[in-house]
């Protein structure tokens, strides 16, 4: 997957988890939770959808690395290598 494909895959997940009608416009450098008003249950769902759709396991110790869209894409890019 290219960086853009990863980014779109993450945005797809966020759209479904947050119950939005279209992909959210987010600032990649800012925390996702505040921008989209996500709670801890929503955040865990993003982690579980990553596992379900893309077989990416995120250990709890790494949850902090998924704070922003950019850091999430960085993280996935790194673990896929």
């Amino acid at each position, binding site marked *: 997957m290219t960086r853009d494909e990863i980014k779109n895959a993450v945005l797809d997940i966020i759209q479904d988890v*947050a*119950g939005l009608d279209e992909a959210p416009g987010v600032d990649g450098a800012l925390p996702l939770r505040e921008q989209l008003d996500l709670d801890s*249950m929503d955040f*865990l*769902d993003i982690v579980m959808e990553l596992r*379900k759709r893309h077989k990416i396991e995120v250990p709890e110790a790494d949850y902090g690395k998924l704070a922003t869209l950019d850091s999430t894409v960085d993280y996935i890019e790194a673990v896929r290598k």
Partner: protein
Amino acid sequence: MAYDAVIIGAGPSGLAAAVRLAHFGKKVCLVEAHSRLGGMNSWHRVAGMEISSGLHAFTNYCADGRSGALGKLLRQLRVKFKDLELYPQNRSSIRFPSCTLAFDNGPELLRSQIAQCFPAGIDGFDRLRTLIRETDEGEITDRRTSAREVLESHLRDPLLVDMLFCPVMLYGNPGGVGDGKDGSRSLPDMDWLLFCVVWKCLFESGMACPLSGMRKLWETLAERFRADGGELILSARVARVMVGSGRAVGVRLEDGREFRADMIFSSVGFGETLGLVESRREGETADIPAGISIVEGVAVLDRPSASIGMEDTAIFFSLDDAFSFRRPAALVERKSGVALAMDNYLLPEPAKKRVLKMSRLANYPLWRRLAPEEYREAKTATALGMAADLALLGVRIHEGRDGRGAFGCFDDLFTPLTLERFTSRTEGALYGSPVKSRSGETPYGNLYLIGTDQGFHGIVGAMLSGVAMVNRHLLAR
């Protein structure tokens, strides 16, 4: 056959739990005793019309579909708010002989009514609301606080205390705190955390009705569950929860089929679930008391509710300024009740289903003792009593003094025995047991409670319970 989870009961909590687990690839079997979905909130037919049984409306409604418990639930289930087609209530009221308080979705109307009727109590009411907002009702604790003590310390007026207790208790108090014994003279009370749960259901958010009844939602969820590989078995009753070394290992159905599972989630109630466990360990499962039961009458009207004096969506009433909430000494409590008009929602077109419902507390053991002929007579008397007491509130479903020329009749009556038969709840205790397991845990490993006896309430609360328990005990692992 081995499953990741077996879920007992395809009501709101069981369906929500099942959909959630199947979505994340778990192998799940959902077992339902009846041929229909919905559990306590299913559907039945009256005069050819399909009517939601039990709760016909959601509480926790928020207009944006995103905030609060409803928003959280919809996101967890990947259900779109607009697909529910929810329509909010007109307005409702709490009626006592010396005062009426109106409320609608959101606390402003109720607050202004209290400011008008109880000017000395409004500061206390505001402080009480702040305290409720700051209380985490999802906290997992066995500590029990008296809601009455909290209310009395904020609101000086005993009438206001009773008026606020009335709808909260009639909507969601299983009984059992301070009022457990028949004829007990102690004042009605309930657990503070449960009070906060029900308060938020009713007053901080509010009521809304799905346009096509509850059935459509249950069928949509069941379809999703099957599409994700889930197995739904209707008309099959779980006879036993099988255990090995103190842990649940599977279920045996009445027809003899056995399903092994790593985990079992049961929505049939706390005491009812423990009653299913084979060879209970001695002394470990003290009997869980059954809660209070009700009677519910359903009247199909030949004209709109509003035209016979029922303009509110719900009327929570007490015919005595001292509200009492306990198992009545007679078959039915005549001093209080709740009346609901299913056509009084802000619907896009005039309602086709003009239905009044009324429910009041009932005495299960007395109903149980009746001979068949007495039982029929008691149903008729209860239906007439409902119509007569509604007339005291200005709602006339019977025209004229002799009661002839009825616009409708509560002859479709659910007694505690009907409820026990169709919901599997001991003594027809629809509010669940006074004893909750907020963690969902039971004395047996791998056996968890979901639904009302886990501590939440109403349709949204029960579904959120199913979601939260599978998240906590299975998906988070």
